[in-house]
């Protein structure tokens, strides 16, 4: 139900340096990017923040480039920009696939990858992609720059390794070797939050990550090992059950998520594993 939005302050830094200083001085001011998550929480009255730090005007947080096969994506990059980027299309087609399935066009124009990462929802659609691509999070603060591997970034349900005065400035995403795979199982065909989402990189050393099946996005190292060492899909499916911990919530059930996660693993492996049609054709 509606709550008052009075007594909220907006800080408007002019540069990244300015922003880092404000972040240091007022760590309670919440960074604000595309505002697509923030606005919803504000409207539902579940957002305690009183002050906001507007990042939207900081071009230092925008841009996509590639160096030595590593794609650097500015935190403020929107889904639309990801979908339109030839670099992303070439190196990270699974990120394009994920971006296309976020919300609808309005959200894609405004929502950012940095916001998706910082928001830390286990259902964030880009997170499994970043997990299997072995991305690195570039954090800045007045104390300097820090690089944190994405798989170490989340410390628990909606908590991260970022310090209170740090900002996410960019993500470094190495181009994976092997076929990229993404599938979202949402509550409906569009404008949907994921019930389960999978990203994967196929080949002899597969990498697999799931969203919405644990307090954070999860990589499945043991399951990956079973597949890499020639285990059957059944063995892998069994293994994966110990690496996920889904729950019943308003969107789905634990039982459903377990079963569908297993089905998705099978689908992924059929399409990208050594026995897949592509592999058979010698690609």
């Amino acid at each position, binding site marked *: *139900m*509606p709550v008052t939005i*009075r007594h909220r302050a907006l800080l408007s830094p002019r540069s990244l340096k300015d922003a880092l200083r404000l972040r240091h001085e007022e760590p309670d001011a919440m960074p604000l990017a595309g505002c697509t998550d923030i606005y919803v929480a504000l409207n539902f009255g579940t957002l305690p923040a009183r002050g906001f730090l507007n990042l939207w005007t900081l071009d230092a947080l925008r841009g996509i480039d590639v160096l030595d096969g590593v794609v650097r994506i500015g935190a403020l990059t929107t889904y639309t920009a990801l979908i339109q980027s030839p670099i992303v299309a070439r190196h990270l087609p699974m990120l394009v696939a994920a971006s296309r399935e976020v919300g609808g066009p309005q959200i894609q124009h405004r929502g950012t990858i940095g916001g998706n990462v910082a928001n830390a929802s286990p259902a964030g659609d880009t997170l499994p992609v970043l997990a299997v691509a072995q991305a690195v999070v570039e954090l800045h603060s007045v104390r300097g720059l820090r690089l944190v591997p994405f798989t170490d970034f989340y410390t628990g349900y909606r908590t991260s390794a970022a310090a209170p005065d740090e900002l996410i400035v960019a993500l470094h995403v190495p181009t994976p070797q092997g076929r990229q795979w993404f599938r979202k*199982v949402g509550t409906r065909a569009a404008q949907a*939050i994921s019930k389960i989402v999978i990203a994967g990189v196929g080949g002899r050393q597969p990498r697999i990550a799931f969203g919405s099946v644990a307090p954070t996005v999860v990589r499945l190292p043991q399951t990956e090992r079973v597949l890499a060492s020639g285990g059957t899909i059944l063995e892998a499916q069994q293994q994966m059950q110990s690496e996920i911990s889904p729950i019943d919530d*308003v969107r789905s059930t634990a039982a459903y998520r377990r*079963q569908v996660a297993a089905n998705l693993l099978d689908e992924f492996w059929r399409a990208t594993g050594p026995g897949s049609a592509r592999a058979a054709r010698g690609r």
Partner: protein
Amino acid sequence: MGRRGAVGSNVLRKDGAGKVNGRALYLDDLSFPGMLHARTIRSTIPAGTITRVTPRVATREFIVVDHRDIPGRNVVALIDDDQPCLAEKRIRHVAEPILVLAHEDRETLLGATVDIEYRQTTPNYDPLRSDVTFKQIAIDKGHVADGFARADLIVDGEYRTRHQEQLYIEPNGVIAVPDGHGGVIVYGSLQCPYYVHRALKVLLGLPDERVRVIQTETGGGFGGKEEYPSMIAGHAALAAIKSGRPVKLVYDRVEDMLATTKRHPSIVRHRTGVTKDGRLTAIEIDATFDGGAYATLSAVVLSRGLIHASGPYRCDHVKIRGRATMTNTPPNGAFRGFGAPQTQFAAEVHMDRIADALGIDPVRLRELNAFRPGDITATGQTLGKDCSALTVLREAVKRTDFRKRRKALKGTGRGIGLALFFHGSGFTGSGEVKLASRATLQLTERGARILVGSTEIGQGTRTMLAQIVADTLGVSYDAVDVNDADTGVVPDSGPTVASRTCLIVGRLLQRAAAEMRERLGDLSPSQYLKKHGPLVVTTQYEKPEKVSWDDTTYRGDAYESYGWGCDVAEVQIDPVTSQAIPVAFTTVHEIGRAIHPGLARGQIEGGSAQGIGWALLEEVVIRDGRMVNSSLTNYIIPTTLDTPPIEVQIVDNPYPQGPFGAKGVGEMPIDGPAPAIINAIRHAGVDIREIPASPERIQACASR
């Protein structure tokens, strides 16, 4: 006059331009000098008593209204008058209104808090275990024991449906303005101005003329603005009277979903006797509707539900029992279809199971048993030539090449299913006689002005009524105006519900226009006005001669006429996710005659989409009596990507007593999609008997 008639053509909507160019004013667009904003303070427990209420507000700044401020009776007057407008002590559901706060600054208002202490009691959420029955109804035809004795096979089944939210695009809202003489004028987004009028008179203890209700442009209703606006109007009116100032009360989406009515969940059991060759010999049905915490409209929802419960099928021996019971959840109420979608869901899914049990084709089973003209319904009504069950069935089967498709799809992960259904136009039983609706036509310089209490809620009321008047009076469509639904000016034409506006109110206006045309003779409207002065014609409902109904025995003509429909759905089940994806949908409707084919198709497409949502996606998740997904993020309605193209076929069979042959269309389209889809899922290999057929349920069902 040589002019091409308005009826039957897709004239421009009366409300179209304003809605497109943004000039149409919805409730929240309106403001009055000195206006206060109001907010409702609600219970947070499902059952118990209030022990203390402490508003943490500056009492001099705020208007605080509680039950002691009610000058009349503390009820939302409707049928049983069991629901308080503001709770006194007892709490029966989460989100029950306790206080109304008002303040001129909306933000200050939203920042205010009220502490409420309770003594909790044990809630009941199971309609089968309730101590309170709001209403029971029995329908009997023949003797089912005889029918079962004649059966070669008996098929049992239980079918369940759940809550559904109406999800009109504009949330509920009203503004109450003191009239300066102790009364109020209420503006609101609502379907039934005279319901609100009556409820306010009772609540405020005011005479007729001190209450005036004016409908503002309304962004949808689907039944959700049938009874609940009486509650909201009461809250705003109390605050307006206490403060002496205009008061605006508008819900946001969360509050609207949390607190207002939904479709009744149902549990329907069937036991059917059938011969080897597929003839129904006995139908026994037991239905329980979850009424929620107060009676509201449950009695009449149950009534329509039970009358439609045996489907459009002939059978000599029918026994139907049903009840609406209380649970500690917000009251359920009117929603497009009004009980008939629930019971016809059960009937049509059951029909496919009977066909399976017999090993005959589901089309054949329906063809054998579908009502023909001259057949007698469960309540003893003899159907006339306006009965088109077989016509729509055959048309739908032909258009979809149903039998061939059904064979071709076997074992492919796809399935195809159909549902045959009907829907009575107008109030049930003696309802229309009791309503005694009136409609007025006023001669204007150019043509005529329509004065009715019927509301435009997006479905096309103004347009459709103007078409009927234009052609009857012999003037152009543009020469007919439609007055606002303002109880200070228009007569009571009854509520805008029950697929009744076109048939009942349209017919009243047709009679008025015919009379007016006769009075005009050879004169044009302006000549007449110059010569004779103003001309106003008012007509009142007259029961068609042959229609009769007995409320005590539940026998007779339940509705003067019925619409007939047949839906065919094709679904694909995703083997990875267990999602049932509707890939094709065809619907054939016989509605007498479409006054405005474009609007009629719109109703049929929209109702079908809403039915598809109910069948597959829409789920009200309730925990401890509280809807926990009361937002558009998590209450999932279909987008265009979740609905297949909907192929609509309207079959003409003009109903002689309807205006230009028309019957009702608003509700029927939601009767068929759910059973057609569930039957398609069943054909694809999953025997599911509860909706929504979510992927979770399909998967659980398939792995059983």
